[in-house]
């Protein structure tokens, strides 16, 4: 064994108290990092798998908006912003399907609505996903029927979760069953719209969390109507600047030339114009109750290989830019919106906590090492007098630091494995909806990621090396003459 390692190990044993102080800090750091990262990784993977498998798919396409858009709508600061319709829907879907690796696609409309029984004014809130059942179920098999049946294409009705049914029962003060008719109230640009629909079925989500229990599935036609996405409504389909300038022209003369071929008679024209306007208003009034079958908020896609998502997203965004389509593609994180962000927020908080702990650890370790250097002044002076260059002293302290980091890093790692094993065996229960999302279910099951273990050990090594820099600079200042000074 090289002499430096020998000296390092023996110094560890010789100065047990100091070694323990530094070692416990390092081991604790490794435990926090490994256990924390395991929970973070598990939560991140859980949320990702839950959302990709059940709600978002691998690729998410939406119309561009002023604020970030997720599957739950536009995340506008300080209030509700209506979700814009996906422009050139058919063209976009055609392009999406033509991309290599795209397995299946489905459209979705999202809205918020109030559900109330026919014979009561009591109401319950619901997040409504408007779907075309056949296509949607090809993408997601996310629920099992508890009562009634799933939605079928051509149905008009609503599917609610078991938990939602129980909540409604409490709010309505009566049982809520499959087959009951409820009033669905939504608000779009055309104001409040109410529609009576039957509860087709009560379902249980495979990945059950309180947050997702609020989601109810409605046939897309019903949702379009209550959201005001009807033929007579000029929903805010995003258009290009060029299109806007064309629409801004006052009349057809601007388009086809200003020269008058036949001079119009103002007296004759006035009643005709009024009649046309009246007729048009009537048509609009009728069309306001007919859903716009081409209006979708989002298009979701599952891929043969989920790892291809970045490629597909990039290709789509490039295509949108080249075609001048105001749409954007994103991965599951974009679709999951606040739910995915919650994981990032927790990870940022965790990392800040780790940095604070690391700084405190560096300071404590530094002080302990400084004391060690002071105590070993004579020894270092002797080594220098005997012919040790400064580099040797530097190396000696580095090896000692890395030895202590390795020994206690490994102890910390084993301790972390044991803690994770015990916690998994006990099974920590999520006590609130936020934790349910983080735990990706009711119970936390943490898995150890080897890369995260290596990262944790490297990080602790870096902390130890940083902590030894100042003490070693003091050691290098010790002159060999100190060896001659009697203690």
């Amino acid at each position, binding site marked *: 064994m090289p002499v430096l390692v020998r000296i390092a190990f023996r110094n560890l044993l010789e100065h047990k108290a100091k070694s323990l102080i530094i070692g416990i800090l390092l081991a604790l750091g490794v435990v926090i990092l490994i256990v924390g990262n395991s929970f973070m990784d598990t939560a991140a993977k859980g949320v990702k798998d839950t959302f990709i498998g059940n709600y978002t798919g691998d690729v998410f396409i939406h119309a561009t908006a002023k604020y970030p858009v997720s599957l739950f709508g536009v995340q506008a600061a300080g209030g509700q912003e209506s979700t814009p319709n996906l422009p050139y829907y058919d063209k976009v879907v055609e392009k999406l399907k033509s991309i290599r690796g795209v397995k299946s696609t489905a459209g979705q409309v999202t809205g918020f609505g109030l559900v109330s029984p026919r014979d009561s004014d009591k109401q319950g809130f619901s997040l409504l996903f408007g779907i075309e059942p056949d296509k949607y179920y090809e993408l997601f098999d996310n629920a099992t029927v508890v009562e009634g049946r799933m939605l079928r294409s051509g149905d008009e009705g609503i599917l609610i979760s078991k938990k939602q049914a129980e909540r409604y029962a409490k709010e309505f003060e009566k049982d809520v069953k499959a087959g009951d008719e409820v009033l669905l109230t939504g608000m779009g640009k055309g104001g409040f719209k109410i529609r009576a629909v039957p509860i087709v079925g009560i379902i249980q989500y495979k990945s059950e969390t309180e947050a997702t229990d609020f989601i109810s599935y409605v046939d897309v036609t019903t949702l379009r109507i209550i959201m005001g996405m009807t033929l007579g409504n000029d929903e805010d389909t995003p258009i290009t600047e060029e299109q806007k300038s064309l629409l801004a022209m006052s009349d057809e003369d601007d388009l086809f030339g200003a020269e008058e071929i036949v001079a119009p008679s103002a007296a004759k024209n006035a009643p005709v114009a009024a009649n046309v306007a009246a007729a048009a208003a009537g048509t609009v009034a009728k069309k306001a109750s007919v859903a716009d079958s081409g209006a979708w908020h989002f298009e979701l896609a599952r891929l043969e290989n989920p790892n291809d998502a970045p490629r597909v997203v990039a290709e789509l965004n490039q295509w949108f830019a080249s075609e001048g389509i105001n749409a954007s593609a994103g991965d599951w994180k974009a679709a999951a919106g606040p739910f995915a962000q919650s994981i990032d927020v927790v990870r940022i908080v965790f990392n800040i906590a780790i940095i604070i702990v690391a700084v405190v650890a560096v300071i404590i370790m530094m002080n302990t090492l400084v004391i060690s250097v002071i105590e070993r002044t004579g020894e270092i002076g002797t080594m220098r007098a*005997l*012919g*040790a*260059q400064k580099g040797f002293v530097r190396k000696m302290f580095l090896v000692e630091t890395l030895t202590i980091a390795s020994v206690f890093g490994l102890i910390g790692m084993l301790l972390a494995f044991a803690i994770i094993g015990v916690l998994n065996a006990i099974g920590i229960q999520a006590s609130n909806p936020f934790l349910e999302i983080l735990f990706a279910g009711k119970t936390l099951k943490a898995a150890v990621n080897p890369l995260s273990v290596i990262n944790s050990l490297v990080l602790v090594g870096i902390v130890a090396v940083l902590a030894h820099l100042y003490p070693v600079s003091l050691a290098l200042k010790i*002159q060999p003459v100190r*060896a001659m000074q009697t203690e």
Partner: protein
Amino acid sequence: MTIVEVTGVRKVYPLGKVEVEAVKGVSFCIEKGDFISIAGPSGSGKTTILNMIGCVDRPTAGTVSIAGRPTKDLSDKELTTLRHETLGFIFQSFNLIPVLSVRENIEFPLLLGNERVPKKDKEKWIDYLIEEVGLGQWSTHKPNELSGGQRQRVAIARALVTRPQIVLADEPTANLDSKTGEQIIELMKKINREMETTFIFSTHDAKIVGIADHVIRLQDGLVIENLRRGADASAICADDAAAAEEAR
């Protein structure tokens, strides 16, 4: 052959706001193979002179040459190399590395140089030194398991392991009882004869001074006597004699 040449050396230490002149212009020469004692009472400047010969301290004025090489303008790295290659040290408090065994302590200076010594030769040489200092039974023991005399023997073997031309010993018997002290000096003398290594040791013990064949006596930072005993009495530098005379 002159191996150490000290010329007009002064050493001033700052002590708070005042300066203390520990050595006040000292000159002398030491010949190769000498067994030389630098004697004098406490505070006479013995250790300061030894530190400057040992290249662990620099003179405020004057020059010190080791094996014909002036040390004045050498860098820290060059001084360290010079110490490693030319000098061996025996300290008053033994200064053994506590976590290393007797054998490892003796071997330690060999690990500091760039010179590659075949393992077999190295082992043989260390074995020889251990036997020479009479610690064959103790080679695996740690310093704290040894008596003062045994520790100083380890220090002597360690000082010799790099085959230095000069061994410096700062009051090597100060922490030993008189009998053990005599044994240590006898051992040093024996090695001096057998290996022709120059030994320079500081002491204030008159009995030990008597064993040396060259004595430089200091008082208040000045050489007051530079005495060579036996056949080589004429080998004292002219400067030495003049300086000593002046000090008287």
